[in-house]
């Protein structure tokens, strides 16, 4: 597999309603093939999203995504910009992501691993300034989580870990639909085969919130394995 640098999309790309379509790899007519193929097993991506070589690494990768989502929704609810159905939906998003993070921490500890610490996250101010801003960033985060779980699943070795991942993965899919519904998509469901994302694609989507976007903006291509942990 080629060494791929982390490509950080600009804000315009991230806020595009159909950005997940860029990631869509429709399963072939046979229904099989694309979903599992693209996961990169080794990514020089810092301490949080580092080398992925076993179930614990995958779980920690997922934990970081859950931390990210939980932090954003916590700030979004606290920002006081939500009302009506959006407040209810986002409050549940927050509670679910927190529950996922707790479950994954338990899982990692049961398997003798060490859960990663919650990183410092930064969010664009506009994403917390209005209900629309919250929902638009949510519409980026949720398909990212959904695609990450679908992509990671086939790499998981232990069936109990896979079972736990499956119970979380589907909830991210539900989240996608609830958020799209609030944004006015009719129908809010997406496609018959929600796309798997590679580690690179997930990293590209979340890097800006991990402080990695700045690094990318100034540095151009980053040599594999040499940049500092966030």
């Amino acid at each position, binding site marked *: 597999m080629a060494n791929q640098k982390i490509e950080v999309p600009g804000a315009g790309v991230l806020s595009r309603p159909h950005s997940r379509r860029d990631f869509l790899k429709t*399963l072939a*007519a*046979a*229904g*099989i*093939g*694309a*979903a*599992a*193929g693209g996961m990169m097993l080794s990514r020089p991506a810092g301490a949080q999203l580092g080398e992925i070589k076993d179930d614990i690494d995958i779980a920690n990768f997922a934990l970081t995504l859950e931390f990210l989502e939980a932090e954003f929704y916590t700030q979004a609810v606290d920002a006081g910009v939500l009302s009506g*159905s959006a407040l*209810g*939906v986002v*409050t*549940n*998003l927050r509670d*679910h992501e927190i*529950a*996922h993070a707790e*479950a994954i921490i*338990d*899982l990692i500890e*049961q*398997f003798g691993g060490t859960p990663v610490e919650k990183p410092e996250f930064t969010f664009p101010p506009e994403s917390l300034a209005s209900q629309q801003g919250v929902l638009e960033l949510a519409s980026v985060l949720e398909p990212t989580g*959904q695609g990450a*779980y*679908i992509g990671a*699943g*086939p790499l998981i070795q232990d*069936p*109990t*870990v*896979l*079972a*736990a991942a*499956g*119970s*979380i*993965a*589907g*909830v*991210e*899919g*539900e*989240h*996608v*639909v*609830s958020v799209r*519904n609030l944004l006015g998509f*009719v*129908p*809010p*469901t*997406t*496609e*018959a*085969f*929600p*796309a*798997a994302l590679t580690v690179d694609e997930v990293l590209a989507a979340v890097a800006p919130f991990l402080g990695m976007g700045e690094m990318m903006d100034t540095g151009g291509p980053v040599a594999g394995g040499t940049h500092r942990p966030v």
Partner: protein
Amino acid sequence: MSEARGRIHLAGTRPGLEVSRRNFIKTAAWAGAALAAAGIGGIGWATRYAGAQEGGEPFETYQGLGDAAILQFAYQLELLEGTFYQMGADMGVVSGDALAQIQAIRDHEFAHADALAATLQQLGAEVPATPDFTYPDGVFEDTAAFLDLANTFEPVGIGAYQGAAPALESKEILGAALSIHNSECEHWNGIKILLGIDPPNNVAFEEALPLPQVQEAVAPFGVG
């Protein structure tokens, strides 16, 4: 390991689970169905399940069946759902935005079925004949009843894929199954929106179902 498994098991504290459980009961009551799991295509599901440990993980009930048998069962579930939505759309039980959603879900279910059939052919396995499905009287003339049944079917599909996934041997098939599983979760949320459940995202963890529970849920509709 059993203690660890108990902690990993994510069921039990989920606020929204009541919904699906209640619907299973309702479904079974409608048909007067008891444990009607007769087995699919003589594969001997019930027999194999008898060997699984009581209280084990749901995926254990799918282990040993083989990928083809799991896909054959999933194929029938997709047809059960797709036909249901097809009939609902054709008979005008929903309209407007709700019709658009039901048509989209219908198309997804048939796309899933097509993908599963193609995969079975690749595996050299038989594609099951379309079962002669039975749906409750009047369900296509009563919007609430129709959506209520949809609200039963979707968690069954979710639970089946989620339960079966760790038992799949092919990682490629697993990748596809996880994508389809997620699509079913999207559908469930879409149905909950149509039912006016607010917020619709009301479960923190999806529930995997053991095979016998899935069989019991769908037997009244002609699967099995």
